[in-house]
């Protein structure tokens, strides 16, 4: 089928998760994790301190005075409602700011590199519309350049994550979700699907390779030289569930493939809204149409027209 370049060799990528962030998004998530944990200690620690003391003092035979009818105290009451309320106010503010600022849909800078991600059973297909190349189970990104991932699924719902770069987002058939990220370190980072989707789920991971801008350019050149291309028929061949052992690189792919895949599930939705510049289909109409993915959609190849 398609060739494999030396660059695409799989290797043991570090999987230390977002504890070792390699980009600002994951870093922000880690630091938010720290903030919230630290704030929570305000109410956790008192329990760990007070409980042993209370047990010591008021155990049967302990020094504390026995007050069987004591059941209320306004001061304490204020404390046990007041402190959590204040804390939630603080936590809530932090949550609000962090969430709005780090909406995964928010572009992280001008001129992002757009990669279209199609989740399949049990592999990910990546399309680089700007570069005109495509990969299977290998995501190559330039360091320090904003990246916009557009995701959809050709099968069941999946969840896409590269923990060291950014958190996850679902990919669903007939829909498009987005994830923006920047990598500020080079290296190989594991990405994977986290939403169970059958027998091959455990091994559905891929390598994210972050390289310098120059290396990225030369990788693109090298990729373009790959003999294999991806058209609708090739895409169809990817649909049956399978695990990919070696990443695959395609030197070219049918433009508009991503939208056609969405349209095969949700006709009338794709293209209609924001006018995609990618013209649908350069080959014959029949070839451009991603053939119906599954029996239920057998009547929806109209997207090809």
């Amino acid at each position, binding site marked *: 089928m398609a060739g494999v370049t030396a660059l695409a060799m799989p290797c043991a990528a570090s999987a230390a998760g977002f504890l070792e962030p390699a980009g600002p998004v994951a870093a922000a998530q880690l630091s938010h994790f720290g903030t919230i944990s630290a704030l929570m200690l305000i109410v956790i620690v008192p329990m760990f301190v007070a409980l042993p003391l209370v047990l010591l003092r008021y155990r049967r035979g302990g020094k504390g005075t026995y007050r069987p009818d004591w059941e209320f105290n306004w001061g304490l009451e204020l404390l046990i409602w007041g402190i959590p309320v204040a804390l939630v106010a603080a936590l809530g503010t932090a949550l609000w700011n962090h969430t709005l600022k780090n909406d995964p849909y928010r572009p992280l800078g001008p001129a992002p590199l757009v990669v279209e991600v199609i989740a399949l059973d049990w592999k990910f297909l990546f399309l680089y519309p700007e570069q005109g190349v495509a990969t299977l189970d290998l995501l190559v990104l330039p360091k320090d350049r904003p990246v916009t991932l*557009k995701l959809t699924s050709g099968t069941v719902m999946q969840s896409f994550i590269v923990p060291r770069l950014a958190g996850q987002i679902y990919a669903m058939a007939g829909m498009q979700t987005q994830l923006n990220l920047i990598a500020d370190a080079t290296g190989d980072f594991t990405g994977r699907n986290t939403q169970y989707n059958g027998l091959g789920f455990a091994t559905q991971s891929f390598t994210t390779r972050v390289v310098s801008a120059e290396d990225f350019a030369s990788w693109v050149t090298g990729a373009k030289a790959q003999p294999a291309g991806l058209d609708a028929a090739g895409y169809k061949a990817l649909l049956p569930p399978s695990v990919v052992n070696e990443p695959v690189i395609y030197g070219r792919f049918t433009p508009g493939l991503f939208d056609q895949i969405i349209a095969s599930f949700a006709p009338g939705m794709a293209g209609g809204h924001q006018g995609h510049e990618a013209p649908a289909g350069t080959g014959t109409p029949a070839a451009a149409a991603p053939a119906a993915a599954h029996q239920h959609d057998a009547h929806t190849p109209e997207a090809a027209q």
Partner: protein
Amino acid sequence: MSNRAPANLPASDIEDEGHERRSYVIGLVLALVLTTGAFAVVWFDLFSGAAALAALGLLAVVQAVVHLRYFLHIDLQRSHRDDLLLILFTVLILLIMVSGTIWILYDQHMRMMP
């Protein structure tokens, strides 16, 4: 007159058939008016777009209240309060579930169109 009410029951405590029958008739008349009204709004195109939706929604809510009041005899004055509260609590749950669902699904829909 009711047949099993103890003879010594004060008059004010006895349910009055005429009163209750009137309640059903009022309910029917109001419901007919409201339903026909709603139907007319659409049939004769009395309002358009959002105004029509708002008017229809309002009519439906009013009619639901009419049914509860005149057919189901829900009565804020004389009911056992605790019981009624549990029933009214349903309205809160309904609102949360329905509005939440619609809000979430529309928001997702808007964000997921390519």
